């Protein structure tokens, strides 16, 4: 273990589990699970992109939910730990949002014939990405720690308003993007494909937890 590192026994165990789980996930998602051949809108091998696209999207929702809760807790309790948790979660959430947009774009290029479409889901997701990137910029711009934490918490709560809009945009507006694959315990896929998707979600959430474990604030 590096003497100056932030690793603990627990985080090293989690890292080892994640390495093994990622290898197993790749085998399940890319080799073991069958291509989608059900119905008129069958995706074939392209369904495998869903096993990474949907989990990273779920992870980004979770990250921003945790960010909002931690921000509310900071405004209530005014303790530094909540601000650290919200900042860590938001930063990792931005990475997951960028990955959601990128994998969705790859999917869209082959399924829709275009890298980008000004569709409600895509537009609201990109807006969410820009808002949280703006939050990260604000966090770097304000020097005073107390003022920074307060302003950042307010901006994080404002930014969270967009998250339900992103999720329900496919139901509220006419969208090119497909509706939820797994909702209300009535999934539209089953068998090994459903397992690969759920496994990917658990893995993405564990990756989020491993990445977003809060660091101590800088000294000096």
């Amino acid at each position, binding site marked *: 273990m*590096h003497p100056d590192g932030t690793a603990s026994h627990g985080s090293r165990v989690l890292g080892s589990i994640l390495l093994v789980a990622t290898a197993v996930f790749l085998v399940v998602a*890319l080799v073991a699970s069958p291509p989608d051949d059900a119905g008129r809108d069958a995706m074939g*091998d392209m369904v495998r992109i869903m096993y990474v696209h949907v989990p990273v999207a779920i992870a980004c929702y979770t990250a921003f939910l945790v960010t909002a809760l931690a921000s509310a807790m900071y405004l209530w309790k005014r303790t530094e730990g909540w601000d650290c948790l919200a900042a860590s979660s938001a930063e990792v959430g931005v*990475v997951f949002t960028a990955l959601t947009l990128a*994998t969705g774009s790859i999917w869209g290029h082959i399924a829709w014939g275009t890298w980008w479409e000004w569709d409600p889901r895509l537009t609201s997701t990109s807006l969410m990405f820009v808002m949280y990137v703006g939050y990260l910029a604000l966090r770097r711009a304000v020097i005073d720690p107390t003022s920074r934490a307060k302003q950042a918490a307010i901006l994080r709560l404002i930014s969270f308003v967009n998250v339900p809009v992103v999720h329900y945009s496919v139901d509220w507006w006419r969208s090119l993007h497909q509706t939820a694959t797994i909702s209300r315990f009535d999934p539209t896929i089953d068998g090994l494909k459903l397992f690969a998707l759920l496994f990917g979600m658990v893995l993405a959430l564990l990756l989020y937890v491993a990445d977003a474990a809060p*660091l101590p604030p800088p000294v000096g």
Partner: protein
Amino acid sequence: MLHRFRLQWARGAGGAKGLDVALAERRRGARRRWARQARRAEVPDERFDARRRAGRRQRVAYVAAACVLVIRTLVACAAWIVVRGRRVGRQLPPEERRWTQ
């Protein structure tokens, strides 16, 4: 119109050699044509197969690109966080590194 034309043809042919004989000839001809089409369908069209293979290769490349992108980005993000953690950790006295206890 199609069926009306066939009726007209059958009537004309039937006038010359009897309706039953004409219909039997027509059906034999149709069966031969269907058999030829079915044989042709069984023979793989090389150009179609090449296009299908290229399409599958392209889809596999897109899937691989998406997986590589996600894994490389998350690994890079984790490595960046670890490096930042070490940099910050150097500034803290060992007794304040709560995660090592």
